[in-house]
């Protein structure tokens, strides 16, 4: 998408129009009665979004979800990066752990949640553990991959100039793996939110997911939609912020590739 450039203002107008069209379609579908009657109309959803925005219950639930998601994510990021750098830079460890890592990355950790609940109870701590266990793998896999791809000329340079191991770890291994680490951390951020909400949907842990389930059970569909809308906004904002940050951090990488 390079050639034709539309003016930003026109583009914005077009995008707003597209969203309006989408809402119009929703309105038509509801009006036509083709779907179950409990689905709320456009105006009800908009009103509910406004109501949720000023309700303390909403912000409390959002806070709980975010706290669990971010804590689990942060734990996973630290553990995953350190372990990944060590595994990726030591050939023997890399080969030894490959099956376990492949198993872990394809394990739907949510299936383990009932087990974790048995051990820890249905609370925020359990939620953080499940989120961390889920987020660990994308970070770990990407970091291992990044650490493994050492440029031969760089390794030679490090050896010839006798760079001590710790300095090498910090100034060579870490930065050269950083593009991959960043991708892993970014992927796992959306995993964190997905898993946190998933845990709340199927357990008693408080948060947005739980709220959506409760609203649905109480047949307050407009509120359920409003909450769904906000989870999307939060996910979007998180992804956008991380992408910004990543672009900043990795200027050298993009320049180099040009």
């Amino acid at each position, binding site marked *: 998408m390079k050639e034709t450039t539309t003016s930003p203002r026109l583009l914005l107008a077009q995008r707003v129009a597209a969203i309006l069209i989408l809402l119009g379609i929703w309105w038509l579908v509801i009006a036509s009665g083709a779907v179950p009657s409990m689905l709320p109309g456009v105006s009800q959803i908009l009103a509910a979004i406004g109501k949720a925005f000023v309700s303390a219950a909403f912000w409390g639930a959002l806070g709980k979800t975010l706290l669990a998601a971010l804590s689990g994510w942060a734990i996973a990021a630290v553990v995953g990066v350190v372990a990944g750098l060590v595994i990726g830079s030591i050939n023997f460890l890399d080969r*030894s752990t490959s*099956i376990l890592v492949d198993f872990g*990355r394809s394990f*739907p950790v949510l*299936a383990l*949640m*009932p087990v974790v609940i048995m051990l820890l109870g249905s609370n925020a701590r359990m939620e953080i553990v499940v989120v961390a266990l889920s987020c660990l793998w994308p970070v770990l896999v990407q970091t291992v991959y990044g650490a493994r791809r050492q440029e031969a000329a760089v390794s030679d340079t490090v050896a010839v100039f006798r760079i001590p191991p710790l300095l090498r770890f910090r100034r060579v291994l870490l930065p050269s793996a950083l593009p991959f680490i960043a991708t892993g951390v970014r992927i796992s951020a959306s995993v964190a939110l997905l898993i946190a909400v*998933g845990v709340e*949907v199927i357990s008693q842990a408080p948060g947005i997911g739980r709220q959506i389930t409760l609203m649905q059970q109480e047949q307050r569909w407009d509120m359920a939609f409003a909450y769904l809308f906000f989870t999307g906004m939060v996910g979007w904002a998180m992804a956008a912020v991380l*992408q910004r940050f990543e672009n900043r951090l990795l200027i050298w990488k993009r320049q180099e590739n040009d």
Partner: protein
Amino acid sequence: MTSATLTAAQPRAARKVRRAGGPNTGTRILQSTWLVFVVLAAWWVFSARSTNFFIPSLEQILTVLVRDLGNGVIMAGALYSLANLFVGLLVAAALGIGFGLLLGEVGWLCRIVDPIIHFFRSVPQAALVPMIIGVFGLGQGPKMGTIAFACLWPILLNTIDGVLGVEPTIRKFSKVYRIPRGLHFRKVVLPAALPQIVAGVRVALPIGITVMVVSEMFASTEGLGFYILNSSATFQVPETWAGALLVGVVGYIISMLFILAERRMLRWYYASGSQ
């Protein structure tokens, strides 16, 4: 539309084989499996000594697993779950690839709907489970629909990126030789975008499995997720562990199969080293 590109690393099995002249096959197998055995042995030994009611011995877990595999309880559940997963994934792939090719080729439309796609991509898909099941009921269809909806977005975004990433020289070639539009689509754009499309499906797969588990744990009377949840609700602890372990193994097998298929399908891509 690059902001959500999933440039995840290739999975391990899809890597080029190590340079020849390394250790022989036997040594290599030993090197990559010994830790698995150590972990299993450690689990066996430590869980055998466990006095915690909620940590059954590995022996017990495996016994239960073999029993329920034998009497068909698990098999029925697994078939139910996998059917949901595959139908959902298939629908998502068909829609995602179709619309992705369209949006990738029609730049102005893509730019306009970009925020909408990103919004839907960002909704934590598990939140859809109570909504869709609440509206459409407990049947198999709504579960498939939820999985399809969750998997659609990564496939769609990756397809669009794949189409946008087709080498301009290759495009020009099509123009210069006046390749008809349909042929150009089928024989140029689709294959060139295929690696990225497959990558999108690879990203969608674990999301689909997760949503599958959530949908069955949320409300179901069948499936692997139900087996796990039901076992834990009735305090059948070894069964709970066995179910979780099995879902893990199934997930592992599916992703390994996927990687194998991917390698076959994209042989030219890996062989040409264009990654």
